[in-house]
């Protein structure tokens, strides 16, 4: 998923990665500010393929968090309002975290103490049953799942939740399931227009033979369906209370909390959903009585407030905020504060896309890739605690990642190889060539742009920076006929598989305005390989195949220069218990937290 800046926010899309818990908490006792950040080794532990859980794994209640207490209201600081509250429209991290508290889907990701994930049944009794290698998946609903109004969720609600995703008003959110059921790209919309005029998807696609059973039928095997259904975007929307567009402001909760008060642009209060039964939920806890979410607190403000640890801040967590670069040394150098932090290797890869319609000479693309000052660029985004130089287009959190795959020798020249790049520019006869570089308007992106511009100038190019309002950055660079040569975007897997990285980024059949194939790569071999690999049902074989495709794309075409991988570093108040990094959301695990007093 893209690291999308929504209406008013830069938000990272919900990631599902597998792997180890990476709590820090440790200190060297001396309060020194030496680097205690996570490394690619930690990320490698996260790239284990997600396990499919059994009916036993899916039974609630969730295992108790040691020492957990019930009660109190947890404070949450967030930079902006949530872009969407309708689960069908949710595809970004902060809303995804909120979704974990409000909504439930057929499946969900359960994490153990080490962060290893198992896909378990959420409102379904297990992670799904298939007898034909993944072409048909059957789900049976648990008893006693009710929404906030007391309505018992049945198969008609699940059917409706899937069908409504075809309606034109749903324009955000994941589209894996719709595409698998009814056609790639946006062709699924032509197959069916949604349930609001009384029509249903045919039984040959989606069948609900009784109140408890839901059967998905695909043309080709979809072994990753359980992982896809665990995304918040596929949560259940009870049919009778679906208000279409209005639902985005007043959704109906099925999870442990419901919306008690919502003031757009200001904040939101969550209160207990009395109809949620912990016995039916294998993953969530609801230790606190509610959440008081306050918007308009940027990373710097959040960090300072939480570091000061006074008043409300003692009971506070960040959702997607991070320790700000300016406060980094204060936090790292404070042993007591470090015990209140979490760290993890996030799944996002920042890459410089080449608009292949405009930069057709591979030598120029290779030169720009070689010249990228990756170290300086990631240091502007939180330093060692914010990222790490990327050697490939695959994140260390993705199965199949190989640190040795380093065609541009990032290991030796992490901050760029100006001489080699200069030579290539001369060979290409491109000295003085104008390169239009689009970047977002946030301060950090502006700082990075200065570094990149400087590197491009050093290798003999004529870079022209074009600042684009961050609110519409992805929309602008997502246009096929955009007027930019290069632009940096972030992408992270939706679950631990290359299937959620390479098809959205490099499948030529998906090129259209708004597509995430930002480089407009349309290579016959790549397209064929994507189709072939998606049919591989063995996760290990698939991981190897994605790695090989990654190598081909980087060495033979080079449509995007890998710049840096991202890490997450968050701090919470001293009264927060159960603090841990979630490998599912890449941030604080909000389903585990409690207040100590």
């Amino acid at each position, binding site marked *: 998923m*893209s690291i*999308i800046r929504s*209406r*008013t926010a830069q938000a990272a899309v919900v990631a599902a990665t597998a792997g180890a818990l990476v709590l820090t908490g440790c200190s060297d006792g001396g309060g020194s500010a030496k680097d205690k950040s996570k490394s690619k080794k930690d990320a490698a532990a996260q790239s284990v393929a997600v396990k499919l859980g059994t009916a036993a794994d899916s039974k609630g209640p969730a295992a108790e968090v040691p020492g957990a207490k019930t009660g109190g209201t947890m404070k949450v600081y967030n930079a902006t*309002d949530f872009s969407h509250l309708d689960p069908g*429209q949710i*595809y970004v991290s902060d809303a995804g975290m909120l979704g974990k508290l409000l909504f439930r889907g057929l499946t969900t990701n359960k994490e153990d103490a080490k962060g290893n994930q198992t896909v378990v049944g959420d409102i379904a009794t297990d992670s799904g049953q298939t007898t034909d290698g993944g072409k048909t998946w059957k789900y049976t609903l648990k008893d006693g799942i009710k929404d906030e109004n007391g309505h018992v969720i049945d198969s008609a609600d699940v059917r409706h939740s899937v069908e409504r995703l075809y309606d*034109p*008003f*749903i*324009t*955000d*959110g994941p*589209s894996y399931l719709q595409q698998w059921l009814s056609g790639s790209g*946006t062709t699924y*919309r032509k197959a069916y227009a949604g349930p609001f005029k009384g029509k249903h998807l045919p039984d040959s696609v989606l069948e609900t033979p009784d109140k408890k059973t839901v059967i998905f039928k695909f043309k080709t095997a979809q072994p990753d369906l359980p992982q896809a259904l665990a995304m918040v975007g596929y949560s259940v929307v009870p049919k009778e209370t679906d208000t279409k*567009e*209005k639902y*985005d*402001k007043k959704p109906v909760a099925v999870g442990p909390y419901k919306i008690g008060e919502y*003031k*757009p*642009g*200001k*904040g939101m209060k969550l209160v207990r959903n009395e109809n949620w039964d912990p016995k039916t939920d294998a993953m969530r806890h609801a230790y606190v009585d509610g959440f008081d979410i306050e*918007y*308009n*607190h*940027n990373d710097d*403000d959040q960090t*300072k*407030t939480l*570091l*000061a640890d*006074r*008043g409300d*801040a003692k009971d506070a967590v960040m959702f997607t905020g991070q320790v700000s670069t300016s406060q980094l040394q204060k936090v790292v150098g404070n042993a007591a504060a470090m015990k209140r932090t979490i760290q993890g290797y996030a799944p996002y890869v920042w890459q410089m896309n080449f608009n292949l319609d405009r930069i057709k000479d591979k030598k120029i693309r290779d030169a720009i890739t070689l010249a990228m000052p990756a170290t300086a660029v990631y240091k502007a985004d939180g330093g060692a605690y914010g990222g790490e130089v990327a050697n490939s287009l695959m994140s260390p959190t993705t199965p199949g990642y190989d640190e040795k795959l380093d065609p541009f020798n990032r290991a030796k020249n992490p901050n760029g190889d100006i001489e080699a790049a200069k030579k290539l520019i001369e060979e290409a006869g491109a000295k003085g060539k104008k390169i239009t570089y689009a970047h977002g308007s946030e301060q950090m992106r502006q700082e990075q742009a200065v570094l990149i511009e400087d590197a491009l100038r050093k290798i003999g190019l004529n870079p022209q920076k074009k600042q684009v*309002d961050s*609110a*519409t950055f*992805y*929309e602008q660079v*997502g246009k096929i006929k955009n007027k930019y040569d290069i632009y940096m975007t972030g992408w992270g897997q939706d679950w631990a598989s290359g299937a959620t990285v390479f098809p959205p980024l490099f499948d030529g059949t998906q090129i259209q*305005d*708004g597509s*995430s194939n930002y480089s407009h790569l349309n290579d016959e071999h790549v397209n064929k390989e994507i189709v072939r690999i998606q049919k591989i049902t063995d996760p290990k074989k698939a991981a190897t195949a994605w790695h090989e495709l990654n190598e081909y794309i980087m060495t033979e075409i080079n449509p995007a220069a890998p710049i840096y991988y991202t890490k997450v570093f968050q701090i919470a108040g001293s009264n927060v218990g159960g603090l841990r990094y979630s490998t599912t959301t890449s941030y604080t695990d909000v389903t585990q937290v409690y207040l100590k007093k």
Partner: protein
Amino acid sequence: MLRFLLRRTLGAALILLLISAFTFFMFFAIPQDPAMLACGKNCTPDALDIIHKNLGLDDPVPVQYWNFLVGIFAGRDFAVGHCDAPCFGVSFSTQEMVWDTIVDRFPLTLSLTVGGLIVFLFVGLGTGLLAAAKRGTWLDKGASSVSLVLSSMQIYFLGPVVLGAFVYDTGWLDKPKYVPFSENLGEWFMGLLIPWLVMSVIFTANYTRMSRSTMIEQLQEEHVRAARAKGMRKNYVFFRYAWRGSLIPIVTILGMDISALLGGGMVTELTFGLSGIGRLAIDSVLNKDLPLTMGVMLVSAAFIIALNIIVDALYAVIDPRVRLS
């Protein structure tokens, strides 16, 4: 007085009409479809059509403007529901009724601006008068020097410094937040204390210098010296004769400062993470949210005009020679 108020109210209505028309038509000069912003990453022509219909963007611009004006007095119907008068439409970005959003945010801005106004008038005038009364002393020189330094300060610089020193590092003061007046008076006061102080600093300096100089001028006036010569008490003459006269230029400046105060309030809200009309204005412009921009513009303009009318009316109270009619 009644004729004056009637005349000013009619003038205000005309100004608001011109502002609304200018903003509305300027908005459509932006070469970007506002529906695109509400449409997501998988936007389709069908989705765009729905959004156009829901937001009332299908009609010609003059018709939309007319509907907007009628809606203010008569209410309107939208896809998301009925919008009661005064209806400023439905926000493109939040799908909320604009009027409801403004009503929700306005108390904070009102608390912030009026509170700030009281602080800087009280501190500024008090210091200025004291400096004038103690002319030539260390107190006078100190007040003049400090006000000179403070007048060069900016909210966005001073705010983080004050937060760092008094909130994050020492914890002496509460982190700024807004608790409604009616909910908890103490928390309302403590939550806005830092924003008031920081916001008022830049204004206080001007009023200190202004009140000092006008007061010194007034104290030289013949009618003041005559009053003293008649044997009236010093303090009586100071406040009854000189101070009243010195207020007239200050009230003039105050009238001009009111819009700056609202602008200062905007920066203050951003600096302290408060969600009032100022932040709403910025968000609405960034999101190209016409109904919200219009609502904020008109309410802010009405607020500034109303305060100016009050200030003008004050002339008559302060100076009996002024006849409003």
